[in-house]
């Protein structure tokens, strides 16, 4: 049973402490899997749906909220990702005064680097969510290759992956 307030607070915290659409992924992954509220599969599903659906890919959190807690979860996720961007007004003010301060720039950069670092364990979990397998590794590798071309629409990309899953796994 999901406690809506703590779920919302977690979603809000993750969004507040991240910039960009997937910066909140490591924190959400760590806390939700530790509490047994979500598993790797749900994260992968939400990320895939977020890629396919319109709008910023950051809307994957809406999908995650839905998978965990139904429409209510989607609504909580919507509020949680709609509020933090309002702080951009404060950032714009701050930037006018201290945006070029080296400590400020350093802080933002350090957070960005830590997000990338914290991504690594999440990626390994996604890759081997069904135990280590050569086929999964191969699919991931091909996926990187396809992604690098920037030519293949994401829906085709993930469709091919689904086909590979049906045939190989």
């Amino acid at each position, binding site marked *: 049973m999901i406690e809506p307030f703590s779920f919302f607070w977690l979603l809000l915290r993750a969004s*507040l*402490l*991240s*910039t960009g*659409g997937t910066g909140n992924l490591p*924190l959400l992954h760590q806390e939700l899997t530790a509490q047994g509220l979500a598993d790797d599969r749900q994260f*992968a599903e*939400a*990320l*895939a*749906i977020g890629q396919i*659906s*319109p*709008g*910023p890919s*950051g809307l994957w959190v*809406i*999908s995650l909220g839905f998978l965990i807690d139904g429409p209510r979860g*989607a609504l909580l996720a919507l509020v949680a990702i*709609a509020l*933090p*961007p309002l*702080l*951009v007004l404060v950032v*714009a*003010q701050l930037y006018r005064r201290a*945006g070029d301060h*080296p*400590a*400020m*720039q*350093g*802080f*933002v*950069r350090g*957070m960005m*680097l*830590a*997000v*990338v*670092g*914290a*991504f690594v364990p*999440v*990626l390994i979990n*996604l*890759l081997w*969510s069904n135990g280590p397998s050569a086929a*999964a590794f191969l*699919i*991931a*590798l091909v*996926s*990187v290759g396809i*992604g690098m071309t920037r030519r293949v629409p994401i829906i085709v*990309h993930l469709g091919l992956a*689904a086909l590979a*899953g*049906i045939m190989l*796994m």
Partner: protein
Amino acid sequence: MADAEPTAMRPVQPPAGLQLLWIWLGLGVQSFGGGTATLFLIRRAVVERHGWLSEAEFTRDWALCQAAPGINLICLTVLVGYRVRGALGIVVAMIGLLLPSVTITALLTGMYASIRDLDMVQSALRGVVPATAGLGLLLSVQMLRPPLTDSCREGRASLILTIALVIATALLVGVARMPVIVALLGAGMIAAIAGWRRARLRPAEPQP
């Protein structure tokens, strides 16, 4: 970079709320191509079609959004909405951009949830999951590129710190199970001190 303060009432004649809502809804409906395509559409509407912001203002706003919390595109929507029509502009812009895409995302998830236990869906998913891992890897490389380029320019010490922070976070979070928040704030603090010291050692460096 002068005047980054958000000033409302930018355009010659502020458009009516309903008209604004219509424009943003149009952007929301067309946002099927994902983030980059949406940014392209917003820029075209805001700068070229309606002239609410100049090209330079738009670029600066987008840069500010990289440093603000949350989804960059929503930050941009907030900033542009505010500049065009103040608080009302923010509300209208967010509703317009998010209503179509959020509804479709929730509907897609609902549809998916009703078939997710089928055998075929399960095995399809075993292909999709590693593919998203591959996409995530690409995304990390893209996120890493700007700070990596910056620190390369600043010299070897900065580059080593950059790489060390990434590896240390990966190990501390992945192996030692450090809370992600602690890792994020800790890395931010370390890099802030490093940035501040670097600036003090080279005070004559010209501002970018």
